[in-house]
């Protein structure tokens, strides 16, 4: 495996914190996240996450090469894309699924770049962004994991994926962290 992409909206701040805190310290795959969050909140959230998880956490910059042992967030109000040379690019294209950044954009472009070396994770959220993108990850041979809608803070987002196709795993956060650790080895 080469990378993990994560998408979430409503309830996502808490879910990401839980997921990262449950991952073993030696989990070194890059984790690239689209979280629907305002531009006023992102910086404090990133620094808080860094202190809680002891991981390198930052906003993804355009043209930046993707590195191990780093957690990246899409900048608010931009779509985040992965190029085939494993660098980031940004776009100001119209909103997709009422969202910018859109999870679908990250997932789809990540699937093209990482193909079967990618883990796609869709967490709590109250719209259906990310479902189609996660399906693309599966089509390209990547592993797809969806948060259990029964235990998720908001179930619309994980449920939309499960209705669209059959993800490889449907798990609650704790088991998800274990599965990711296993896959990341």
């Amino acid at each position: 495996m080469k990378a993990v992409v994560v998408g979430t909206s409503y309830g996502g701040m808490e879910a990401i914190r839980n997921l990262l805190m449950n991952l073993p310290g030696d989990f070194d795959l890059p984790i690239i996240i689209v979280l629907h969050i305002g531009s006023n909140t992102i910086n404090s959230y990133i620094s808080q996450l860094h202190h809680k998880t002891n991981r390198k956490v930052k906003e993804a910059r355009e043209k930046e090469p993707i590195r191990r042992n780093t957690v990246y967030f899409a900048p608010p109000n931009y779509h985040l894309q992965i190029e085939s040379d494993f660098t980031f690019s940004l776009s100001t294209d119209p909103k997709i699924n009422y969202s910018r950044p859109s999870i679908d954009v990250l997932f789809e472009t990540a699937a093209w770049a990482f193909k079967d070396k990618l883990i796609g994770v869709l967490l709590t959220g109250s719209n259906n962004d990310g479902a189609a993108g996660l399906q693309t990850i599966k089509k390209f041979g990547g592993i797809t994991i969806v948060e259990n809608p029964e235990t998720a803070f908001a179930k619309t987002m994980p449920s939309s994926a499960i209705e669209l196709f059959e993800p490889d795993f449907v798990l609650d956060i704790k088991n998800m962290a274990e599965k990711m650790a296993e896959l990341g080895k």
Partner: protein
Amino acid sequence: MLSDKPNDTNVSQEVMDTKDIEVDLLLQAVFMKYGHDFRNYSKAHLKRRINQRLQLNGYNTISELQNKVLWDKTFFRTFLQDLSINVTEMFRDPEFYLTFREKVVSDLKTYARLKIWQAGCSTGEEVYSLAILLKEEDLLSRTQIYATDFNKNVLETAKQGIYPKKEMELYAKNYIEAGGKGKLSDYYTSKYGSVLFDKSLSKNIVFADHNLVTDGVFAEVNLIFCRNVLIYFDKFLQNKVLKLFNESLTKRGILCLGTKESLRFTDFEQSFSMLDKKMRIYKKLQIPKK
């Protein structure tokens, strides 16, 4: 949907994806036939736009699309529109405009005549934003704005200055946060779900067809405004366009980029000083740093 053949997933990273080959061939074909050069654009973005067109027209492969693009000029105009960059709103990043008022306007007031180039103006939302700001700062009457784009359709929209009324709520909010001195509605008249921006704003604006990738310097200007255009280009093309900007700017001219764009790691890092780091406002140095 683009056909994701099952065996595609077994292709090793070293072997180029068939679709990537098709994208490169398509861009080469567009350049050779029509002279529009997208070969150094960010590929992920182009691929998404191309995919959307495939789905809309029901084509299975990019090669089919290429055939149509090569033989049907009318279709090519549509496709060109697909690849064009959309600027999304007026006063996007209000904080930028606020900083511009605080840190750039006083500098601009020292000029008797002012020339501004808005490069990649798209449908013009940011040109009108800038014009409103300049009007409120008593600068518009002495300013000549060149607003350019390679896409004639978006230029036509920009020239007309007509936008959907439903966008005005967001734009009005942005305008206030951007330090606007009146009301945004002072600058337009509404009719049938559309608004028309005041012609006094566009009196000093020349809308012109210019391609940043293939065209050269056309005027010497005091300020270049090019926000969220460079993010669509690869490193090579960014440097090429920045060279054009550097040559077009007067001594101590000002360059405004998007807030996620930067001169760092480009060939021109040493040619500019930072006027505002966060809002990516640069000033051309008389003598580049060593």
